């Protein structure tokens, strides 16, 4: 059952990203990405990380993508002039993608060959995660909260600035 679920979710997430690339409408791109992130949340659930899966769906597919929807609403929705000409950048992008894919596959080839199962269960306890977050990683947690406040104030002061009329 679990492998079938994994393949469905993996196809949905990769297909969502491909849909984001090919769609011309920015709003459709955002919605495809919401689909991809929600499916990825399911994959996280398969990795015995239920809390991270919930965070993925709530924060990523929910909050962050709503920010993107608002940004798409404020700027115009479609590319007014999609450049039709094949720029060299696009060809380089495909080349880079293929080379990078081969390189990364080479990097994990030992694990792929070993085909080890995804470890023993026992990483599921959310209580352990919470105590780790508030004991071992307490400083990092506080720094992250300061980062969030700084980003919030920075975003407000940037977006509230008056542009040249």
């Amino acid at each position: 059952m679990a492998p079938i679920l994994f393949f469905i979710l993996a196809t949905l997430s990769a297909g969502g990203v491909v849909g984001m690339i090919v769609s011309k409408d920015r709003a459709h791109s955002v919605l495809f990405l919401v689909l991809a992130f929600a499916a990825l949340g399911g994959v996280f659930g398969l990795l015995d990380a239920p809390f991270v899966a919930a965070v993925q769906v709530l924060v990523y597919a929910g909050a962050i993508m709503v920010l993107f929807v608002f940004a798409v609403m404020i700027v115009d929705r479609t590319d007014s002039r999609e450049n039709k000409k094949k720029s060299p950048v696009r060809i380089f992008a495909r080349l880079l993608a293929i080379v990078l894919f081969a390189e990364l596959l080479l990097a994990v080839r030992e694990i792929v060959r070993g085909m080890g199962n995804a470890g023993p269960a026992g990483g599921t306890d959310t209580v352990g995660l919470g105590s780790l977050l508030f004991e071992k990683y307490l400083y990092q947690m506080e720094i992250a909260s300061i980062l969030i406040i700084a980003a919030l104030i920075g975003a407000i002061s940037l977006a509230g600035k008056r542009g040249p009329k």
Partner: protein
Amino acid sequence: MIPTAFFLILSIVLFVLGVAAFFIKRDLITMFMAVEVMLNSANLAFLTFAKSSASLDGQVIVFFVVTVAAAEAAVGLAIILVVFKRKKSIQSDDLDIMKG
């Protein structure tokens, strides 16, 4: 059980798709979304290794990545809005003020 390799390969595929989208798309918002895809594929790799080594530290790092991604999205989209106000365009080709 699902082999670790499947999750790693999904992570690689998502990362490469993110890199390709970043260079193929020409508008700033979609390029930004491509960065989010890359961050998510890194999260998937972290969770995969956290599971295969039966440790929770990888999941903690995923939390910090999500935090930084949220901060980055807020500031980045504010910058994109400022650019749109000034230039009336968010095509990366139009932002050639630094071009030599």
